[in-house]
């Protein structure tokens, strides 16, 4: 089970090092702190919107999870800074990750 194999099934996981309790982002097989193997935490994670802008009808947002993971995600409704969100849809398309939030 890898981050990408889970993501390609539409499951967003959080990579974590059990040895040093560090969330590792971007996702990696190894911890960037202690070099141990990372594990994937599954769940319905809550994040918050850090910043956003808009292109055509869609908003693109920088969102943060656990004060350490930041990623860019699409949102269809008007976002607000510090708004609490969840990932509603994610996956891999043409080699690139995609994330949608509500």
């Amino acid at each position, binding site marked *: 089970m890898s981050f990408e194999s889970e993501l390609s099934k539409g499951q967003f996981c959080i990579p974590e090092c059990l040895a040093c309790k560090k969330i590792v*982002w*971007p996702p990696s097989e190894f911890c960037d702190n202690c070099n141990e193997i990372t594990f994937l935490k599954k769940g319905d994670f809550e994040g918050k919107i*850090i*910043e*956003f*802008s*808009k*292109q055509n009808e869609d908003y*693109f947002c*920088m969102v943060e999870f656990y004060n350490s993971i*930041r*990623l*860019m*995600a*699409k949102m269809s409704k008007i976002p607000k800074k510090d708004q609490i969100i969840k990932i509603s849809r994610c996956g891999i*398309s043409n*080699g*690139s*990750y*995609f*994330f949608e939030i509500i």
Partner: protein
Amino acid sequence: MSKVGIIAYGTTPFTKEDHKIESILHKSTNDLFQKNPNIDKKEIDAVLVSTNNNSKYLSPILSEMTGIQPKIAHSIESLCNSGTNSIVSAFAYISSGLADMVLISGAERYDSPGQILEWDNSRGEFKHPIFWASIFSKSYKQKFGISDEELAIVSVKNHKQAKENPNALSKKTYTIQDVVNSKKLTDDLRLLDCSRPCTGSASILLASEEVVRKNTDRPVWITGIGQKTTSAGFTKNNSLSSMESTKIAGQSALKMANHTISDIDVAEVHDAFSVCEPMALESLGFVNPGKGMSIINDLHETNNFKINPRGGLIGTGHPLGATGISQTIEIVQQLQKSAEKRQTDNAEVGLIHNMSAAATSSTVLVLEK
């Protein structure tokens, strides 16, 4: 550490034309040798090629095409700051004694693969640079109460200055309304806020003190170097309204040169997008946070070319691998008082700021006569 200076330079115009990478590398290098016929190619110990192009073995190819048989020949890629990173590598070769004379040639085509960092999946489907630029712009404008019209002055100023640069991509001037009414790429970014990918090449020749003094009576010395990489991924930037890597690189370069920012008479800063210019000026310490647009506005109104005299990336165009070298050539010309209509007053100490991938990596150079 032994002194390293700049002997000579050459360039091509920056255009939208379709040329082979090998051809434009050769063209700017040839320009260098034509302008400096007394340089003995046999004395060139290293040839470094700065590019994001996927063609292979470019440094040995350029060496063969120009009749050089260097000891050291390789390419250097670091997205948008490949050029100054190559200059730093050349500096290290010379100051360590591994080389006495190094040719650096940077080039890019308009369709460079270096425009998008495919690895950075944290950007999701928003990998094009216009998305990080929009987030920076939104954050900066909101934090410091800057309007789109105020930010547009960067583009107006740099297009105006580029008009005096015969090698610049842009030949036009624009008004604030032209910029804010140009094609809307996102809610926070217009087309004229962006530097444009293009085809171009720039070459520069560095040497040890003894070789510099033998070859030119107008040497320019690299007296300060600072580099910092904070991450590769855009979303790792802690601040979206300042440039941490630039701040650290700038401080290192000024410390090495034994100068403060107030000693800098002329600077080329990496205005990949309008918002980058005030952010860079603030992060380098020219002004306090949020005050970048004040100095830019003053310079524009007084027709002072102190910042980005060649027209910046916005006016000159941005052939990634050539940009840092082109910026450096501009500062050399300023210090040598040969910048013609772009010449600034009393240019004795100059600075170059060149960065990559949403300011995740910065290189700063200080140059002096």
